[in-house]
């Protein structure tokens, strides 16, 4: 079993090899109903189910991953998150999680609106396109930036909507939603200032 306790402070541990998972695992209340969009092989959900006793559901488009998720006890559904939330009634979940996938969706705003329709809270984690290395890479090379956060070439990248911490916050304000928690990270440290410049990744807890 993996240690759940996160130390408050600048240092963030990893859960299942990922610091965003560690943060998400802290944000989710025990015993709650959780829907994970793009749940992959269900590792996070299986962990939450096991350790936080949540009712764990997931949507994933890749059949092989769905298979592994179901095999690990997660109620996963093979489907497309760009279309897939319409079936759910309003406020069916306490948390709807979207981790490292927002930038891959075709209609990010629609997905976010749907998340906040079916969930009381949305947990959104995404890589920050405003990170200084991305900015520099673009400036110096004159090409589509490639960094360790965005390692893909322009033609084989799954990322189709690039966004920064600032962009996300503007959208939240524009839609009239409320940021409950914001955690910005670079490697395993939280960023205290100049978030949009220094953070590699951001995790937001948002409510309508």
């Amino acid at each position, binding site marked *: 079993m993996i240690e759940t306790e996160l130390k408050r402070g600048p240092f963030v541990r990893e859960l299942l090899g990922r610091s965003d998972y560690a943060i998400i695992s802290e944000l989710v209340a025990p015993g709650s109903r959780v829907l994970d969009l793009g749940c992959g092989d269900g590792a996070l959900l299986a962990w939450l189910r096991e350790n936080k006793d949540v009712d764990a559901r997931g949507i994933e488009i890749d059949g092989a991953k769905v298979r592994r998720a179901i095999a690990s006890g997660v109620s*996963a559904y093979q489907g497309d998150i760009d279309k897939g939330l319409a079936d759910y009634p309003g406020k069916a979940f306490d948390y709807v999680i979207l981790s490292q996938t927002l930038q891959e969706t075709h209609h990010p705003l629609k997905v976010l609106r749907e998340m906040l329709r079916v969930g009381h809270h949305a947990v959104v984690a995404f890589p920050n396109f405003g990170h200084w290395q991305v900015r520099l890479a673009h400036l110096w090379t004159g090409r589509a930036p490639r960094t360790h956060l965005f390692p893909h070439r322009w033609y084989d990248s799954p990322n189709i909507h690039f966004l920064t911490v600032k962009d996300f916050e503007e959208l939240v304000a524009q839609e009239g939603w409320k940021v409950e928690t914001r955690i910005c990270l670079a490697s395993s440290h939280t960023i205290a200032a100049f978030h949009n410049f220094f953070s590699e990744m951001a995790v937001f807890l948002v409510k309508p």
Partner: protein
Amino acid sequence: MIVETLEAHFDSLALDCGEVIAPVRVAYETYGELNAAKSNAILILHAFTGDAHAAGICPETGKPGWWESMIGPGKAFDTNEYFVICSNVLGGCSGTTGPSSINPETGKLYAMEFPLITIKDMVRLQKMLIDSMGIEKLLAVSGGSMGAMQALEWAVDYPEAVAASIPIAGTWRHSAQQIAFNEVGRQSIMADPEWNGGYYDEEKGPGRGLAVARMIGHITYMSDESMREKFGRRLREKEKFGFDFEIDFEVESYLRYRGKQFIGRFDANSYLYITKALDYFDISNGKASLAAAFEHTTARFLLISFTSDWLYPSYQSQEIVSALRSRNRDVAYVELASNYGHDAFLVDVGEQTEVVKGFLASTLKAISKGKS
């Protein structure tokens, strides 16, 4: 594992059509051990022409069960963990009361005096069997094809008695295409003069009509790919065409063989009655919508469909999943890649095993935590 087919007897069974069958006999088999709390029972539901012999070896015929690959120690339905039950359906011809049983009122075979039955009736009889075993709640109900319909029906009709439902390669109602194939099969039987309005000798019967019906059925169970792989255009024991109407192609030989083999083990009237039950099936019957049909279900669901299944295409499972989600039911769904068509749930069980096993384990865990 040598298994024996057992029998249970009930005084009567009231049917959807308004009639009553009395008495009723059910043939069934069990595998594994029922635990003291009677909480580890799984009911397996067979497809159209299946029977109670789902697993193990039949002592008389030496034949393995029809889902031998899925049921047994260490398999998907692990008999080291679970107590697995399978019964022959109402209207069948393998031990459970059907049109080829004796009508106690006349002392002759029921034949066409047997009342029309539904999937719901089949499930009602299974519930009587489960009750007689003292099992209050099944850990799971599962089956493919017609078995999937029964698995849905169980979750809808007896929500308090089912913790999990696993419908595989199924549908929530027969489509026009599915009804059409069944009608061709029925017409083939009824067009055979030996059918004689349903009153034929056990020994004779409409063998040719039944064989053709089976041939049609077999085509729908396979896929374009699996037929291409298995037969292609290969000729049967000849180098060139015979320029006659004897068998030229392998596929002709296979279908004729399958048809002939079927005559020996299946009753033509059962074919008629059960295909009607399939065609009547619509889980939303009398409800405002498919979603409304799931209003009172409490079971977890796992649905599985197969990419090359054109008899019960994936969209039909997806419609069920969609309706369950609209009621916020706990539902898992995966479409497995297979070239084997509708038969995949019987023959291509590797990935199916992985999924079913994990789903059952998590269901059992949730129950032991007191959540289900």
